């Protein structure tokens, strides 16, 4: 669906906006997860064809002309694993945020002065 792709891209843009303008490091990670959801929506939408069902065989379906009834299974398979990886990567980023807070006592990225000149 065309609208679904636009919704996904709106989520990507909102996530980028959050990552680029917010100062709180937890807000930046939230922006990353919003981008994640948007990209998953776009990729699943690539495999959708209107009026078709999920690619799961049932009794009574004839093998042979199934490709006229099913949506594309490949984007689903890719997104399936990407979601799980997304959770693990988010957890890793949050752990880094906790460690940085332990050292610096602040979540504001403007206060981290090591990489500024």
């Amino acid at each position, binding site marked *: 669906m065309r609208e*679904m792709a636009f919704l996904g891209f709106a989520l990507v843009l909102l996530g980028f906006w959050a990552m680029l303008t917010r100062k709180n490091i937890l*807000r930046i990670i939230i922006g990353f997860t919003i981008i994640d*959801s948007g990209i998953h*929506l776009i990729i*699943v939408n690539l495999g959708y064809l209107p009026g078709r069902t999920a690619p799961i065989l049932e009794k009574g379906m004839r093998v042979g002309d199934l490709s006229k009834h099913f949506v594309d299974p490949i984007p*689903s398979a890719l997104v399936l694993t990407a*979601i799980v990886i*997304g959770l693990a990567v988010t957890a890793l980023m949050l752990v880094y*945020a906790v460690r940085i807070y332990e050292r610096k006592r602040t979540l504001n990225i403007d206060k981290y002065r090591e990489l500024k000149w």
Partner: protein
Amino acid sequence: MIMVSFYILGIIILLAAILAIYARNIVTAIISTGVISLLVSILFLLLAAPDVAMTEAAIGSGLTTMVFLYAYNRIRRIRERNDG
């Protein structure tokens, strides 16, 4: 009919995303991120991908939210220990 429910869901998702970015309280922002994932999983069901919808519903709204809250809890405890 499906398009009507899609538009309603899409508007709620965009509002939740704006809330997640601009809410003053960080816990509100974390919960609205979970809401985004839960509603996106309904959209996956509309897009005929039940496998993806299951994963996103369990991970996006359950585990990711809790991972965020655990991390925020740790940060809060470090702050309390420092002040007290």
